[in-house]
């Protein structure tokens, strides 16, 4: 146990020391007046603002988190099902996948105004924005995972003449699980971007809070919003790690990425 804690400290300590150093230099630069506080507020000022505005910031964070979970959840369901469909019906893959790739290349900031026209201002547009940006990594990773099933294992299964469903559920989906987990992690980061961009256009959440603070020249509040978005993304990845660890606690291979 003590050895594990020592290892953990040895692993993480350099990053914490670097962060402390960075924040101290930042604080010093602002306190010494080398940079104007209205351009770069000090870390302590940002912390004070966060405490002072906490009810508003917390409500905005909660709203953004909801949109992220909606978008990511929907991406997971539709991404994995579409990948299974494309995998099972190659002609569907050839017909539809190129358009999915094309759709992925269009920046979300360009699509967001259209979403407002279709879904109106508010959370539905933000959910849709988070969904659109997070769909493709899950779809593409799942499809790759399904396609890269070990041919030797496929041959082994063939010996026992499995049904199509047995092949899918006992071989192909388990083979794809590490790829799906990687896809979810990539999509989690993107869903945060999608939700914030959606909120810039459609209102609500951290995106709206950051935008409003910008128009009021409240740089400290902008920083608060930025840090909360970053904390949201990190806690999302941490939660995904925790959940996959719990879900596959007895199957170490499926957690390997």
């Amino acid at each position, binding site marked *: 146990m003590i050895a594990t804690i020592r290892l953990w400290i040895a692993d993480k300590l350099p990053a914490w020391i670097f962060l402390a150093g960075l924040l101290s230099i930042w604080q010093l630069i602002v306190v010494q007046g080398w940079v104007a506080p209205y351009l770069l507020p000090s870390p302590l000022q940002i912390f004070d603002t966060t405490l002072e505005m906490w009810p508003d910031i917390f409500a905005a964070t909660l709203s953004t988190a909801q949109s992220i979970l909606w978008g990511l959840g929907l991406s997971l369901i539709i991404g994995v099902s579409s990948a299974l469909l494309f995998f099972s019906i190659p002609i569907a893959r050839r017909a539809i996948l190129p358009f999915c790739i094309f759709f992925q290349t269009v920046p979300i900031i360009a699509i967001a105004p259209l979403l407002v026209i279709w879904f109106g201002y508010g959370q539905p547009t933000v959910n849709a924005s988070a969904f659109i940006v997070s769909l493709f990594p899950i779809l593409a990773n799942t499809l790759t995972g399904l396609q890269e099933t070990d041919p*030797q294992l496929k*041959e082994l299964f063939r010996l*026992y003449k499995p049904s199509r469903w*047995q092949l899918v559920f006992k*071989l192909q989906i*388990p083979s794809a699980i590490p790829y799906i987990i990687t896809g979810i992690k990539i999509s989690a980061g993107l869903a945060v971007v999608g939700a914030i961009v959606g909120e810039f256009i459609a209102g609500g959440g951290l995106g709206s809070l950051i935008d409003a603070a910008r128009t009021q020249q409240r740089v400290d509040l902008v920083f608060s919003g930025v840090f909360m978005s970053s904390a949201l993304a990190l806690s999302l990845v941490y939660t995904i790690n925790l959940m996959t660890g719990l879900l596959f606690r007895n199957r170490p291979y499926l957690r390997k990425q």
Partner: protein
Amino acid sequence: MPSIEVQQLEKSFSSDAQALFAGLSFTLDSDECLCLLGPSGCGKTTLLRLLMGLEQPSSGTIHVDPALDAKMSYVFQEPRLVPWRTCLENVLLPLELTAKNNPAARDRAVELLQKIGLSDRLEHFPDQLSGGMQMRVALARALITQPKIILLDEPFAALDERTRFHMQDLLLELKARLQLQYIFVTHSISEAVYISDRILLLDNTGAARDLRSLPFRARNQSLKLTPAFNDVVKEYSSLFSEMEDSMKKSSAAQSKQ
């Protein structure tokens, strides 16, 4: 009635490559265990795969007694264990895929794993086992379906000598107790003489020497120390060397042309 009847067999993997076997014919009687012996590249594995139906012949026929067709099992050259399944689950896989998994089958799987010396590894995953242990699990998986004929592709090559001897004796025991037939690929002449009733010595010109009626009845590891056994091994070794020499001469002649 023969268990397997092979007539005028040929197999080529591309139109410009020389065909393997060049009209090989043989029958396997219902009480015989056969070893396929020959230098690398002569098609031992391919012949085994053809017999199992994993490859189709380019010409000729393979007839398997219909009563035995569904009672054939196969052990690949490598263990091919499903990495996310435990030892026990790997052994039970064929029964799951053929909907024959039940508590009695589980008991049988545990018994098989005990027999091969892995009773303390039931819940271990393949990556927690040595190569030899993995191969033994693969053998148990092939035996769980209670086959009448088992095809084994160099299954003991990766095992240490003690375990290899133990596995050879296990095969002989199963043959005596369950009337199990096997076709066994090996590079070891001593192993071939010890565990088979008959040896098919293949070379890559298509010629096959059928070495029948090995003169030993009761077999145990001490047999390998007897002069009679070693005389047979020497005799077959010289046949094997002659075959390799003629192959070298013919390939040298071909390269001169």
